[in-house]
């Protein structure tokens, strides 16, 4: 009885200790979400431009979905296409590069490592202008392609750095173990290396997508005649004042993304369960093999 009470008290103390932490986290989150909420609120603003709050209306949503403002929708489509392509390229090159730069020694490796810092380090405008000049000399046509190259150039370093940070001595031990157990390089890569750095891959993908979809400057400089991304459009509209239909669109985007996250989460959970079952099975097999080996 006394023991149970002590445990109870301990739990209570634990919980009390957690309160300041929760408040702190809530404050941090609110500094991120208050602007978003205000942004959403102003999608219901009954004014031509968001100079200040003029009254409540829902008229911007039907107006948005009548697709009258096709500039807005087009630039959104370009933004999304670019972000997805950039994420895929950056993660592939990032995973390969992260592993390659960690594992191998080769002439010029130091140099490449240094180069990886450059896009993170230099102001975006410099990267943008320098690439613009190069593209013009090389005769590239400005458009989605050049924006993708521009975004990848600053997303790949982040991807490489994140993934390199994920690879530790453990990974090599695991890889060696896998090879010792008879797996070839490809199997090892796909079944051991990739899963072991999966969290890194996920955050690299996250970051690439976020950086790409939010980028203003490089998109602005490297956009061609007909394709500009949503941030570039917003930047130029901001000169005269943001119109509430842009708020409405951004609101819809947030909702869609949250919905997408939930779906992803569910899929991930199903996948994890299957993974865990498979892992348990393979553990079983390894143990059996080890036993067999010992016996032998």
């Amino acid at each position, binding site marked *: 009885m006394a023991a149970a009470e002590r445990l109870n008290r301990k739990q209570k103390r634990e919980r009390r200790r957690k309160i300041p932490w929760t408040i702190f986290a809530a404050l941090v989150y609110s500094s991120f979400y208050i602007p978003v909420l205000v942004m959403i609120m*102003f999608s219901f603003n009954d004014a031509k431009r968001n100079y200040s709050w003029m009254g409540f209306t829902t008229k911007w949503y039907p107006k948005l979905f009548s697709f009258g403002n096709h500039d807005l929708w087009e630039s959104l489509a370009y933004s999304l296409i670019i972000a997805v392509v950039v994420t895929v390229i950056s993660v592939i090159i990032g995973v390969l590069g992260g592993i*390659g730069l960690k594992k191998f020694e080769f002439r010029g490796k130091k140099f490449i490592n240094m*180069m990886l810092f450059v896009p993170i380090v230099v*102001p975006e405008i*410099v990267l943008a202008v*320098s690439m613009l000049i190069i593209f013009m000399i090389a005769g590239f046509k400005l458009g989605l392609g050049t924006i993708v190259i521009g975004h990848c150039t600053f997303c790949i370093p982040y991807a490489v750095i994140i993934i390199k940070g994920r690879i530790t001595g453990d990974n090599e031990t695991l890889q060696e173990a896998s090879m010792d157990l008879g797996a070839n390089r490809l199997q090892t890569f796909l079944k051991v290396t990739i899963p072991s750095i999966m969290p890194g891959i996920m955050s690299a993908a996250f*970051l690439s997508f976020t950086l790409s979809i939010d980028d203003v400057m490089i998109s602005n400089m490297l956009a061609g005649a007909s394709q500009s991304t949503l*941030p570039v459009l917003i930047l130029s509209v901001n000169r005269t004042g*943001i119109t509430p239909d842009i708020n409405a669109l951004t609101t819809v*985007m947030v909702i869609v993304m949250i919905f997408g996250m939930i779906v992803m989460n569910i899929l991930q959970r199903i996948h994890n369960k299957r993974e865990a079952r498979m892992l348990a099975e393979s553990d079983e097999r390894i143990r059996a093999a080890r036993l067999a080996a010992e016996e032998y």
Partner: protein
Amino acid sequence: MTASKGRAKGTNRLPLLAQAGPVSLWMILFVTIPMLFIIFISFMTRGTFGGVEYTPSLESYQTMMEVTYFHIIVKSLGVAAETTIACLIVGYPFAYYIARKPPATASRLITLLMIPFWTNSLMRLNAWMLIFQTNGPVNNFMLNTHMIDKPITFIFTDGLVLLGLITNYLPFAVLPMYSSIEKLEKPILEASADLGATPGVTLLKVTLPLTFPGIFSAIILTFIPALGTYVITDMLGGGKVLYIGNIIKNQFGTIRNWPLGAALSVLLLVITALMIFIYSRFAKVEDMEVV
């Protein structure tokens, strides 16, 4: 390409080529060559309508030596440092808080952190303006509660610029620190506690040193972009509060002095190289590579 010519440990160069090749090629094509070109341009003469005249000159570097530019550079470094320190002070405990949660909760919390960043940063900056503008909710609240009797001009001040910078770069500080804290082995912390260390001592002597690569990565990911930004300072500073990023941007925009912009960029490169050099005096470079 030259990088891939190097010899791998073994005889088989294929994995090396496949893995390090793409990234090396990309970096050389789209970073090295353009950057060399920018350095080259910084030693040229400005064209009348922007662009460059290919006449060698040190004019840009001479302009840069003027005292006003020095002030701007110092001010920019100061603001970037303030942003970074604020991001570390808020970000580290926050990353720690997330990392100590069960993995599923942690990943959900990280997602929650990233969602606002899928709304355009310009829209969020615009929202801060709406909140703090002269007839905005903050001023109205303070007027109604008689805390003030005249609206305060919050917008277009250094303070709001700093708020914008911090809220914009905090996630980039949290993510790397979260990764390194999350990698910490719980047994180590428990061992520290078992050996009689108070939580404070454990934090100072064990957690902080072990997560230093993450912290340094956070510094890089906040300090340097904050030093080079111009969109945030432009929007929240009203074109009056100028930092080095704005000056560089203006050289490629309204002022059209590309060589000077290039020279200022070279300066930023030097500052960054210096930072990394300083770091290398205190810690192993390999640790930094793990960033």
